[in-house]
Structures are given as C-alpha cells and as structure tokens.
C-alpha cells in the first residue's frame, strides 16, 4: 500500500529505481487517490490513464500544452482544443520518464489568485475545503498537498506558483525568467510567465527544476543556466546573508499569525548560522502591484487576441465574421479575462501607451535596480509569500482589488524577473503559512540550499491533518 499523502517525488524515484514498485503501479495508486479524494477537491480537470514513461508521474497545470490531451487553460473558449504538440516542459518531463497523471485546474488563463475563475468550477483547499487553494495554480498545489500527485508543474506570472504553494503547505518555485521554456505554455503575460515546480519538499523542487531548466531553441527568451542545478544537502545556513525587506514584512494586511510564523522562521535563519539584516525595497512594494496591473493585462490583451473561434476551440455561431468573433469571445471568455483585456487594450491605446505601458516598463527597471542593490548586501530576501492564509471561497470574488492584493508580496520580484521559492513555515489558525525566499538572478541553487536547511529545521508536516485522520 503506497501512502500517496506522504510519499515525496524523491522517495517515489527510489522505489521505482529499486524496483519495489513499477511506474504503472505508482500511476495507478495516484489515480485511485484521485478517484477517492478529488470529487471533493476538484484539483484535476482531467486525468490521463496511460502515458509514456515508467518513472514518477506528474500532474500538469492545464495552461501547459500536452499533445493529444485536451488543454483548456481553464477557459470555455478552449473547450475541446486538443494540442498537436507538447510544450517543451512536457517533452522534458516525458524525456525524463515522468508520465502525465492529468491536467490540473487553474484560474482562466492563469488570471486569478484563488482558482475560482476557472470556467470549470473552483478547486478546494485540502486543509479546509471551505477555503481556496490559492491561484492561479490551485489545482497543482491542491493535488500535491492532498497526495493526488507526487509533484506537479505550475506556471507563475505574478505569484501563481508561490501563492498557492503557501496556501496549501507545499513548496513552489518560480524560476528566474528565461531559465524555463515557455514554448507550449498558453500565454498570459509573456514577459512575466514562467513554469515552475510544485512539490512536497525543496529537494523534490530542485530535482524537478533540473529536468525543466535550460535553453530551448523554440523560445528565444531562454538562456543556458550559468551553473548546474545542485540538489541541496546542507542543513545549516552558515555564511548566508539573509535580508529582511521592511516593507514586505510590515505591509498593511499581513495577518498577525502569518507575521508570527515568518518572524519565527527568520529567527531560525540566524540560529542556523545565517547573518540576518534588515533592508528596504520601498519602490518595489509601492509600485510593484500597480505596475503589474498595467503590464500583465496589456500583454494579456494581445495574447488573447488569437482566440476568435476561427481555427480551434469554442465557436459561437454568427452570420458574419465580425459577429462570429464577437459572439465567440463574449461567450467564451469569463469575466476576469474580459476585465483584463479591457484594461490592457486601454493601456496600449494610441495616446495612452507612453503614460501606461511605457511608464510601467520604466518602473520595472527601477524595481529591478532596487532588488539588485539589495542583492549586493544579501544572498536571500525573506518575507511572507501571502499576506494571509487561505481565505474562504467567495470571500474576494466580488472585489477584484482585494483579490489582486493577494499577490502584493509575490509580484515585485516577478517584475524584476527574479526567482522565488515558497516553503511552508508553520500554521496560523490551523492553516499553512508560506515563507517567500527571493534570490538574485540565476540564484536558484542558493534558494534550494536555504529552503532545504529551513525545511529540515522547521519540520513542517505537509499532510493536511483532516486527510491524515481520514487515512
């Protein structure tokens, strides 16, 4: 009997290597767990019964293209779209022998922070099904947290890997922009989108990142890694300089329980031998979010122009071409994509471009510089990943601005193209709290090292108690 709730990717690899279990048996065990628990959670949009590879299976967020397996990006407008090709990250997983378990739920086109914007219904948090798992990659995070996948792929534009990881007690990495191919990833905001792993442990995260990262000739914005990925071993933080950006740890809206758990983790850094010091990122925190809400919708309005009902996916009828396009887009897109298409179209309009998109790009440079200056003094910056623990379904759907604030702390480093890791660092009101570790460009190895040592010292139990009891 395999305990999928507890089994890590690394442990599963060991079982397969030692031939204690076959890849097919492993695959079956997870499909059984999905049958048992996903009715309540709805982490998956669809499962794959048989897939290439005899290694440890993986769940894939539905914005990532899978050949022959319907890929909807959580949108009605792509219903029925079956890709003719694999995303580069899908190919890399297959090449590494990881079969596909299924496609996980997501906010429509990855636009959201709760997975409630999925056209196919929300995903629920395994720690408390009345609450959201975060978003947009709530499906992948919930699947890993509930033992419905040993590991998963997510995609992060402004926090869609890190924030759900925080809300579900899992580990999530948003890699340095350009290290993981975007080819075959349904585009939301091209200059921000990055695919990243969602796992139970930091070592799993590093193992998966090693499979995903590297230059891809199909994505001109990718680069070669400056150094190979190291699977972390060390259990101390000697020699590591940890910066605590004041604005990100004292921001309005951070719940006391979250602040406490993060503060304890920071103390632990010092106990593990790190040099801890305070720093400031005033402009990044003040302008990060507004700047993001110009850049991301602007690019989204452009990226979503291709969904017109002419070539694939959903098509509403129409007597004329214009009518067909308008009706398809009206019926095919949900409210959030429509909202962002309108915002973005406005921001790119003649006469407004310089004031909005142009200005936002300049502010992005300022944010990048501010971070670069901090990294002259520190190796890692720490803060809460999310100001709050998982909130209840429906709590923020009526107020888009409240929803947008969920990503207040994850967005600034995304705007700077920097890597960020979220690890669970404790509980608040019985719900997981995420600690965000931000690194300099290409400093994933540093993040893995720090995350691993903290994870060992924290001893967080990633199995949601209600599921452990049920088992």
């Amino acid at each position, binding site marked *: 009997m395999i305990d999928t709730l507890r089994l890590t990717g690394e442990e599963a690899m060991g079982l397969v290597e030692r031939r204690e279990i076959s890849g097919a048996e492993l695959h079956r065990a997870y499909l059984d767990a999905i049958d048992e628990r996903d009715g309540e959670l709805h982490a998956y949009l669809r499962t794959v019964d048989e897939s290439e590879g005899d290694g440890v299976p993986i769940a894939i967020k539905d914005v990532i293209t899978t050949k022959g397996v319907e890929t909807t990006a959580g949108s009605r407008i792509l219903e029925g779209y079956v890709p003719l090709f694999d995303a580069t990250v899908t190919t890399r997983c297959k090449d590494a022998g990881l079969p596909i378990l299924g496609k996980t739920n997501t906010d429509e086109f990855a636009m959201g922070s709760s997975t409630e914007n999925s056209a196919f219904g929300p995903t629920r948090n395994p720690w408390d099904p009345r609450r959201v798992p975060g978003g947009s990659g709530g499906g992948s995070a919930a699947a890993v947290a509930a033992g419905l996948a040993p590991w998963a792929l997510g995609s992060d534009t402004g926090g869609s890997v890190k924030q759900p990881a925080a809300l579900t007690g899992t580990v999530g990495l948003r890699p340095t922009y350009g290290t993981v191919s975007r080819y075959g990833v349904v*585009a939301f905001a*091209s200059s921000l989108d990055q695919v990243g792993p969602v796992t139970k442990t930091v070592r799993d995260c590093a193992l998966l990142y090693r499979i995903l990262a590297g230059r891809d000739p199909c994505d001109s914005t990718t680069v070669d890694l400056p150094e190979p990925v190291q699977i972390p071993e060390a259990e101390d933080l000697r020699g590591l300089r940890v910066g605590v950006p004041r604005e990100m740890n004292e921001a309005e809206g951070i719940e006391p329980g979250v602040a406490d758990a993060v503060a304890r983790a920071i103390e632990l850094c010092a106990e593990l031998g790190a040099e801890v010091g305070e720093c400031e990122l005033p402009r990044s925190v003040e302008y990060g979010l507004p700047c993001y809400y110009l850049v991301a919708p*602007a690019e989204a309005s*452009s990226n979503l122009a291709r969904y017109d009902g*002419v070539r694939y996916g959903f098509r509403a009828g129409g007597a004329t071409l214009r009518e067909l396009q308008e009706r398809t887009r009206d019926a095919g897109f949900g409210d959030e994509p429509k909202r962002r298409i309108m915002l973005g179209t406005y921001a*790119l309009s003649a006469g407004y*471009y310089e004031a909005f998109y142009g200005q936002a790009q300049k502010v992005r440079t300022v944010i990048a510089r501010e971070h670069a200056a901090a990294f002259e003094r520190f190796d890692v910056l720490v803060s809460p990943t999310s100001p709050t623990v998982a909130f209840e379904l429906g709590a923020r759907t009526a107020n888009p601005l409240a929803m947008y604030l969920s990503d207040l702390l994850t967005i600034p480093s995304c705007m700077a193209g920097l890597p960020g890791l979220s690890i669970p660092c404790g509980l608040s009101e019985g719900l997981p709290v995420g600690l965000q570790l931000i690194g300099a460009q290409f400093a994933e190895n540093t993040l893995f090292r720090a995350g691993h040592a903290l994870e060992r010292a924290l001893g967080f139990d990633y199995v949601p108690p209600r599921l452990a009891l049920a088992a």
Partner: protein
Amino acid sequence: MTTNGWEPVVGLEIHVHLKTRTKMFCRCELAYGAPENSRTCPVCLAHPGTLPVPNRAAIEATIKLGLALGCRIAPRALFHRKHYFYPDLPKGYQISQYDVPLCSDGRFAVPAPGGDREIEIVRAHLEEDAAKTVHVGGESGRIGGAAHSNVDFNRGGTPLVEIVTRPDLHSPEDARAFLQLLRQTIVELGISDAEMEKGTLRADANISVRRAGERALRTRTELKNMNSFSFIARGIEAEVARQVAVWESGGEVTQQTFDYDAATGKLRPHRTKEEAEDYRYLPEPDLVPVEPPAELVERLRAEVPELPSSRVRLLMDAHGRSYESALFIGRLPFADLFREMIKAGWHADDAEHALMNTFSAIDVRPELENLAELYRVYAVRHELPRPVVIEATSASSRAGFSAEPYLAQRAVADLSELDPVIDRILAANEPQVAQYRAGKEGLLGFFVGQVMRETQGKASPQVVNERLREKLKS
C-alpha cells in the same frame, strides 16, 4: 514635373517577399503554388503557447538590402506586435517593426540625364506577411456580399521587407524609374524574385500635390494594389490629375485610400475597415532585440555586389544610353558583354540593338573573341534578312566564327538591280496602283511582298519600302 503650375509629391511604400527557405518565425517551407494550407504548423496557425523564432537568413537579407540602400543598421532593433482582427492574421497581431527598424536613414540614387535623383529611404523593416483570404461568391472577390471566405495560411508568416521612401518623387515617371532600379537592385542582391505579377513585390504610393514653389505639404491620399510598374505610373498620374482638379475647382482633397483599377484606368475608393485603426503597438515580449554584431554587418557589406545604379549611370553618361535601355543593358551579365562589345569596336547603338533584340531573344552569348568579327554582320544588319543575323549570332557562340558566309547573303539594296524589278511589278498591277494613289495606302505591303518574292527574299525590305513609296507618289 509640374502640371499647370502644380507639382506632384509622391512617396512609396514597397513590400518585398524575401526568398528564404523557411518562413519568418517558424520552420514551414516557403512555396508558391503549393496546395492550400499545406505549409502550416502550430506556430503559423497561432496555436496556444506557440512562440516565434526569428529567421536568421531573413534578418541577414534585410541588413544586406539596408546596406545596398545606404541605410544605418540598428545595433539593437526591436520587433513589435501590430494588432488588428482579421482572419488572415491568426495571432490577432502581426509581428513587425515599429520605432527601431533594422535599417533606417538611407539614400538611393537614381541616375537621370541631368544628374542623379536622390531618394531618401526613411526605413526598411522586417515583418511577417498575412495569410491570403479568398472571398467566395458575391461581387469581384470582395468581402462585402461574399457567400463565405477561405483562408490559405501558406503565405502567412512569409518574411516581408517594407521599404518606405520620403516623398522625394515628383512625377509618375520618377516613381517608375525608382521602382525599376530598386527592383533590379533587390534581384541582384539575390534576396527576392521581386516579381509584381507573383505578388513578391508590391508597392503603394502616397500622393499629394502643391503649387510650384510651395514648401508645405498638402493632404495626401494613398494608392494601393497596383501590380505593374506602368499601372503605378498611370495610377499616380490619374490621382495627381484628380487632386489638381479638386484644388482648382476650389475644393479640398481629403485623406483617402484608393485602388487603381487597371482595366478601366479609374480610381476606386479602397474598402474601408469598419473602425478607425489603432494598432496598439507593443514591443514583442516573445523575442529578444536583434543585435547584429559588427562583424556580421561587415561580412554582409562585403557581400553586397556592385549595384546596378553605377552601371546604369555609366551607360547613360559614357555611352549615351537612355535610362530605360541602360536599365536593361545594365543587368548582369549584359553589362559585361556590352563593355566587351564596345572594346571590340561596336557602335553603342548597334550593341544596344543586339543586346535588346537578338541576344536576349535567342538567349545566345557570343564568344568574346568573335565579337569584332560578329560586328561586321551587325554593321550591315539592315541589308541582311533577320534569320541570317540570328544564324550568325548563334554561330558566334562557337570558336572560329567567320562573318563571310553571312555577309554573302546581304540583301540586294542596289537600286540598279531593284528598280527594274519594281517597275515591272508596278506595270503588271495597274489597278492596285490606281487604288493606292486613291488613298488605299495599305496596299504598300502587297507591292513589297511581290518584290520580295521576285528577288527570292534577298531584297532589303527597308530599301524596297522607301523606293516603292517614292515611285507610287509620282
């Protein structure tokens, strides 16, 4: 050129399909006339998640063209997205260049009798072509009233260079001369077939007029869809005339786009899109800036061959050729042959005639060592039947050519031999002579034919013609 004191002001926008093996941003092969939609892939059909990868050969070809046009090559050029909804544009945007094109600020000299005309090149940028929409049913293949529309994505994504000139052209002839030389330059660079009939070269014109001496520009109109050099010249001429008439009648020219209908010679308002265009240019986030290394630019500069303009200029200045002839002779490899012919003692008029009428028609290249000997034939070509001249030309492509056997077939031009024959024929056809004199001059051919038959084709038609006219007049 001025008409009634009005000066035309014309700028051109030229689109050229590059002759690369594959498309601009995917690896589909380019093929004209391939079955519809047989050259497509997820990238050029804009499937979700696909990304563009720029075609290196297309970038190099554009830089080469830029260098030939004397442009500055941007050290860091950008691609932009240009948005509009149309089914021939699957992504909903075209990847083009906007504020930082690959090539800018060039200068293209068109030789003219009184000295070069300098045309400023504002920019030459690289973009992808749209797919082809075919409207089925309805009127004249236009979208209005069509039963349905088919899209052929084979053309979608073809690398396309757009060249924009300043409004430095001041007559339809100037515009035509510029385009002809530009086309020749593009062809010789080997980057495109640049054939208007195939659509691999297209040109639009911006046209306005102003009073001679006026500095400011008046409202301009745009002329599109002209698919030959003559139509462009005629289209501009028609639009200039229209604008002059509008201004002179006290009216005002409004900004407008026209199609030139070659069949009727009329201008027709271009199909207007429903809304005012706002292309919402966005720097293409899927592509990194194009930063051509200095060594690459230098290598490409070294690859730019001698340009036709210098050959055309020489042919006009040193050899007294007209622009049209110089353009024809200035083509490679004719230009070299022309030089050799002059060296071998040919008169420039004869050399031009031979190149334009015989060599190209029968696709023969005489051996250089035979050129002097061949000229003996061409010098008296009026006295030789054309088949003989052609035979001699063919023979001159082989070693050891001698003009003698051909010269022996010289036409009879000697009047002492011809006059008796002519007199005899006129005497034998008195009714026809009377008719001719009564005004039926078409009968001249009848008499010429008779004389030629009588002399077994050896008479010089030119001389016979002249002589007959003279005799019939009296």
